[in-house]
């Protein structure tokens, strides 16, 4: 059965390819100046912020208390001003704008905010993002314009989390959402498209693009062909698929930096990968620029740490260069001597380990193969293995893996769970069982402190500790490539997170205006 399904899935991809080519010339018949079609690679599971729809903003349908500018600064959205945080960091108070309304005309009050967060935290609702909000102890709405968050522990990134969309009280609507954002929901044809319409009475000003169609086309070549043919007005593409669209008249290609990285995760408790000399040597031997140039077709930058160089949290000391000779010396000093077969060994232990990657992910596969070939040059035997996620999860403590994480919003995001010893070996969290009290301390300090300068110092220190221990060998930060047809003012590329459906360049589509 599985095999049959796989077959038909492959088939669909092939078909879709053919399909795009053919549906290209039959252009829409009606007037379409007012309709903008976005070709997206994946369909949303649901449209409820409570269940995990677009929590970092960019939902277009919903507003959060705060919203994020392309330069990643937060500004008040539903909130009238930035929140007041108490001295101990345990109480965060928001005041709402006056006269806010949902798309159905009902007023949006602090009760709706309270409901949204309470529903999200209720285990019975199976929200996929509940663990991100676990710092919240309770939410109160003392009057219609005031929302008070009480936290279980001081948690500085809370404000970053309040980009979560607010839903009307008492509804857990998953597929026909009512929000308060720049676009109102019209219809959703599952597997096909979502239609949105401009909210003419939006508090931030009515969008210039009055009708938005989010069309889903998982196949990259299909999206490339359909944007070329004019079926789509904009889409997101992998670098190689976008190559043919660069320099085409009437089309603009945007390379948007992201915090989305790929890295080699090492199990720290194993004899080979547990030796810092092995990890540092491989970190030195990796030719990251070659990976960017060949595997990513130039759409990326080399990575040396978990924080993107395009964000203000980045510590400039976390950098590096490819130096196989230095890597060899490091291994010699550590006692890993070259054997006759070109593989180093120490006290009878061969310098070899398995590098797992999810079998269906061609990017990670190519990165794993490139890393293995770089490792071979310095006498490390790295054996790539394509596996399914369930197998990978079970073997995370024993074998290295090519992982992808990264968020540009706050350095606490993901990193706390990936590197704090409290999370050792809990599923995909801290998969390598990394345990360094100094890293723990810095992460705790960065999370709890309300002082920006102190946080920046903590995360600078954290980045250096991680780099020095070579907990992961970071490979590349990806760039997301967007193609837009026609001329628009107001397109501002920022720094993308991992998710880029309508969260990346398209998050600001309500401020785009056709160029005169």
């Amino acid at each position, binding site marked *: 059965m*599985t095999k049959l*399904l796989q077959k*038909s*899935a492959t*088939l*669909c991809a*092939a*078909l*879709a390819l*053919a*399909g*795009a*080519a*053919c*549906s290209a010339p*039959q252009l*829409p*018949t*009606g007037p379409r100046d007012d*309709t903008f*079609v976005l070709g997206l690679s994946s369909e949303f*599971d*649901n449209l*409820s912020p409570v*269940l*995990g729809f677009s929590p970092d903003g960019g939902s277009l349908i919903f507003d959060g208390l705060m919203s994020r500018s392309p330069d990643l600064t937060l500004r008040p959205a539903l909130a009238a001003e930035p929140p007041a945080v108490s001295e101990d960091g345990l109480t965060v108070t928001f005041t709402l704008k006056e006269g806010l309304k949902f798309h159905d005309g009902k007023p949006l009050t602090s009760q709706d905010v309270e409901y949204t967060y309470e529903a999200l935290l209720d*285990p019975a609702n*199976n929200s*996929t*993002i*509940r*663990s*991100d909000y*676990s710092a919240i102890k309770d939410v109160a709405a003392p009057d219609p314009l005031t929302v008070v968050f009480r936290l279980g522990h001081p948690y500085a990134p809370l404000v970053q989390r309040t980009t979560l969309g607010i839903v009307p009280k008492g509804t857990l609507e*998953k*597929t026909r959402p009512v929000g308060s954002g720049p676009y109102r929901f*019209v219809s959703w*044809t*599952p*597997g*096909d498209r979502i239609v949105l319409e401009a909210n003419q009475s939006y508090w931030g000003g009515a969008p210039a693009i009055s*009708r938005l*169609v989010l*069309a889903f086309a998982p196949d990259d070549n299909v999206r490339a062909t*359909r944007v070329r043919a004019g079926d*789509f007005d904009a889409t997101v593409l992998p670098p190689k698929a976008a190559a043919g669209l660069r320099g085409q008249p009437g089309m603009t290609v945007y390379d948007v930096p992201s915090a989305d990285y790929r890295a080699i995760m090492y199990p720290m408790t194993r004899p080979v990968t547990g030796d810092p000399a092995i990890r540092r040597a491989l970190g030195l031997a990796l030719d990251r620029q070659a990976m960017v140039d060949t595997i990513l077709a130039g759409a990326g930058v080399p990575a040396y740490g978990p924080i993107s160089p395009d964000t203000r949290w980045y510590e400039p000391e976390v950098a590096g260069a490819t130096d196989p000779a230095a890597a060899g010396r490091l291994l010699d000093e550590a006692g890993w001597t070259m054997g006759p077969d070109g593989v180093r060994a120490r006290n009878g232990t061969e310098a070899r380990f398995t590098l797992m990657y999810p079998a269906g992910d061609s990017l990670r596969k190519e990165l794993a193969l490139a890393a293995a070939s770089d490792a071979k040059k310095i006498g490390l035997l790295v054996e790539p293995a394509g596996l*399914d*996620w*369930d197998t990978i999860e079970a073997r995370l403590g024993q074998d290295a893996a090519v*992982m*992808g*994480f990264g968020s540009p919003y706050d350095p606490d995001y*993901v990193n706390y*769970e990936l590197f704090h010893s409290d*999370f050792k070996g*809990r*599923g*995909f*969290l801290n998969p390598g069982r990394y345990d360094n009290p100094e890293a723990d301390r810095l992460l705790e300090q960065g999370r709890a402190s309300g002082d920006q300068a102190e946080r920046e110092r903590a995360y600078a220190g954290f980045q250096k500790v991680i780099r020095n221990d070579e907990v992961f060998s970071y490979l590349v930060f990806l760039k997301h490539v967007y193609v837009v047809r026609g001329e628009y003012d107001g397109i501002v590329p920022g720094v993308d997170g991992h*998710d880029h459906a309508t969260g990346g360049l398209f998050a600001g589509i309500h401020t785009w205006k056709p160029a005169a």
Partner: protein
Amino acid sequence: MRAVLKMVAWRAAFAAPLLVIVTIGMFALAQASPFDPVRQYLGERALVTSPEVAESIRQNWGLDRPVLEQYATWFGNLVSGDLGESRSLHRPVVEIIGDRLGWTLLATGSALVLMFAGSLAVGTLAAWRRGSWLDRAITGGAFANEAAPVFWLGLLAIWIFAVQLDWLPAGGLTDPAAVAIDPADVFTHMILPVTVLAVSQSSWLILYVRESVIGVLREDFVIGARARGLRERTVLVRHALRSALLPFLTLLGARMPELVTGAILVETVFSWPGVAAASVQAALAVDFPLLAALTLLGTAAVLAGNLLADIAYTVADPRVRTLGVS
């Protein structure tokens, strides 16, 4: 009439345990599936979700209970009419099926009609011109078509009619920029999937009709009709084809399962938003509530098809009517 009612009662009595057995088999397969439904539900978030949250979802779905208990709960809900909520599409299963069943019935129904009309005409033509180049072409084509997988046929049709000739859209229900459902738009999008489904299922019917008509043309009453000087067309259509059709009605029922699987492939290939395409999605996401309901629906379709074929047979053949079917 009594014979028909008796048959319906018998079949219904058999259908109930059969459906229960199907649900048990399906449940066992879902249990043996290597995919973890919670991971599928979390999607990319699975990597950054704490195991406690994943565990609480598992508990909420009752996946931590013993298998027998899970089955009993699900079956109890089913009997009381509650099909549950789809885990991958986040909507009540009844709603999803309600939304999509119409499109499947439209496509499959049209394909059935087209298949009948087309195969009867082509099969009779081949029988009438037996041994000619036309007959050889039809017979050879039918064998080749029978050997070709449905999805391959679909791909080929897309390549020819959508890519090369650019006459018809390659898939979907409506044009990408359309915001409403326009019957003319849907009709053009329907042509390829319906034709492919009809053609893919038609080989056996064409060959059967040809064989059957050839056999009947040798019978005494046909010779008698010809001897009476009736027109060839009347002999062929009114006498030969009519009596050749009888056994074919039973065959039709036996062919229902293939029609159901054919619909799954055709809907997937042409991105047709019907129930059959949803079952592929449900299977990949280990969305048990949806998959279970769709499997039951498929089983019911096969049973109902068989029953209808037998009823038609009873109505059409007086011998069966008097002797009864059992």
